[in-house]
């Protein structure tokens, strides 16, 4: 069985990913300290936690904007990469769920093979669709509102007040935190626990291929034989 390297994650994508990862982890920790200062003091004093949270929040919000405009306007493949097609939802999604929750345990190969043009399996696409198009924008938006209470006071009152916005921010952050745990775990389901982490660091993924010719959608990435 031959293996080959494919360039799956270009440098800007990797920088964006790790900047986001650092930002979101920082936001989770500092946010937890802001809400429960009696129990958590990882970021130093309360003021440090707030400044760190605000800074990380702005970085992640800018990073999100960059991601959106890059894929939408420069690359032009935002929908192709992140929005699952009807067929993927009706067929691929169930296959992928079946793989992760049954076939994987039997030692079967993943039914999906990532390529630079089609990076995510239907399950990933569905999750990222919710996270990147709903959760992250909303948590960023509510965070920006809380950062600008003075100028946005009237608008905040119209949508229910500070308590409602802060609650939404908190619950969405919890959802994002829950996703983060699952995301990291799923990233360990490659041929080795670090197999999916390496391409996000180096850009190159080692894939096994069984044929002389490329498979229609590129080489397999997560076969675990």
């Amino acid at each position: 069985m031959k293996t080959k390297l494919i360039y799956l994650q270009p440098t800007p994508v990797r920088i964006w990913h790790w900047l986001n990862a650092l930002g979101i982890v920082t936001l989770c920790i500092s946010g937890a300290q802001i809400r429960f200062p009696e129990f958590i003091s990882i970021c130093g004093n309360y003021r440090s936690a707030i400044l760190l949270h605000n800074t990380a929040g702005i970085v992640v919000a800018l990073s999100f904007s960059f991601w959106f405009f890059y894929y939408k306007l420069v690359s032009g493949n935002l929908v192709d990469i992140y929005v699952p097609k009807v067929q993927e939802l009706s067929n691929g999604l169930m296959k992928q769920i079946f793989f992760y929750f049954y076939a994987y345990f039997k030692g079967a190969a993943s039914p999906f093979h990532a390529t630079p043009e089609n990076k995510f399996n239907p399950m990933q696409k569905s999750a990222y669709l919710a996270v990147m198009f709903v959760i992250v924008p909303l948590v960023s938006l509510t965070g920006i509102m809380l950062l600008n209470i003075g100028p946005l006071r009237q608008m905040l009152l119209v949508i229910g007040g500070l308590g409602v916005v802060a609650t939404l921010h908190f619950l969405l952050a919890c959802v994002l935190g829950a996703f983060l745990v699952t995301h990291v775990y799923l990233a360990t389901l490659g041929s080795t626990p670090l197999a999916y982490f390496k391409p996000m660091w180096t850009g190159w993924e080692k894939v096994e291929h069984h044929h002389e010719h490329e498979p229609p959608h590129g080489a397999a990435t997560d076969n675990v034989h």
Partner: protein
Amino acid sequence: MYADTQLLKKAVIAATVAAACGLTPGTVIAEGPGFAFGNSAAQNAACLKCHADLQKVGDGHQINGADYQHTTHAQFGCRTCHDNVPDSHPDGKNIARTTACVECHTDVAEQYTVSKHSLEAPDCGSCHNPHTAQKSGQVSALEMNAICTNCHNQIKIASTHAQWLPQTDLHLGAITCVTCHTKTEGFVLSIYIARKDIKGSASRPVIADYNYLSEKAAGKEIQELVDTNHDTYISLEELRRFSSNASNKDLYLKAILTPATTSHAFQTSDKSYNCTFCHASGPNATQISKLVLPEKNGSYRHVAIEGGGTLGSLNAIPDFYMMGSTRNTLLNKLGALILAGGLVMPAGHGFMRFLTRKNRKKE
């Protein structure tokens, strides 16, 4: 508050004064202990006949009668402090005040004289006008701050605090100066009815005055705008109803953290720089809230609000949120449940993965 002094005063109108004030010479207008409120109104009226008129007495001697008559000092009467008005008055000569503030306000003086503030402003009159001064509970939080900003430049206040205080403007609008800069122990969340339709700023909200609220109340007591069941007690539900009532769309509830009791022991204690003093201990330390309503005479009165709820409730005060303190236990549990949900899949899948690891051995 007041020293137990029995100031025996007897004011007999002298001929010259009587002529100026339009009274009969020899009329006894104040008699008995100075703190007996007996004839103070008549006495004050006689004095104000001239002293309310700027043209008659000139700047520096004019008293605003409307403001003065609502002060506690007015109940004691002018002559409680000015008891040496000579027969020759008014003769153009200044009359020394014979009763010092400290004679009544002994505890305040004790607090104040040991503070650094007393070096810069040694006289009570530097901050307080005895002819307009009201009890701390009768003035609004913004009026309290206005006393400070008479001397302390607001731009400098903002820039000094901005060096260390995040969201400076919000803090300065939600806390009175004396909350942090005096030796106070307890705190109260004072809830004011503020106006949306007049653009203020985070640090300078516009509190609705009596006339405006009276018009809104349309003949009812202004308290009934919030206290709909007339029990002189504000429930969280009543606060919510007030905020969601479409006819109140020009108003909002503005919360300001005020001291439970005012102190003149001016100091900036370490707790003022410790954010978590308020942002963590809030649920325990700030359980008392009160609705502060303007009175017709320009003073304010308080109506009790359901204990503890202002911080714990989600939307009782839409404009108020104190991070770390305003947190709802139910929401915390919901958040924990969501996070636990995120752990279920990795934990369950990981366990199965461990049990079936032999199936994935490389051939």
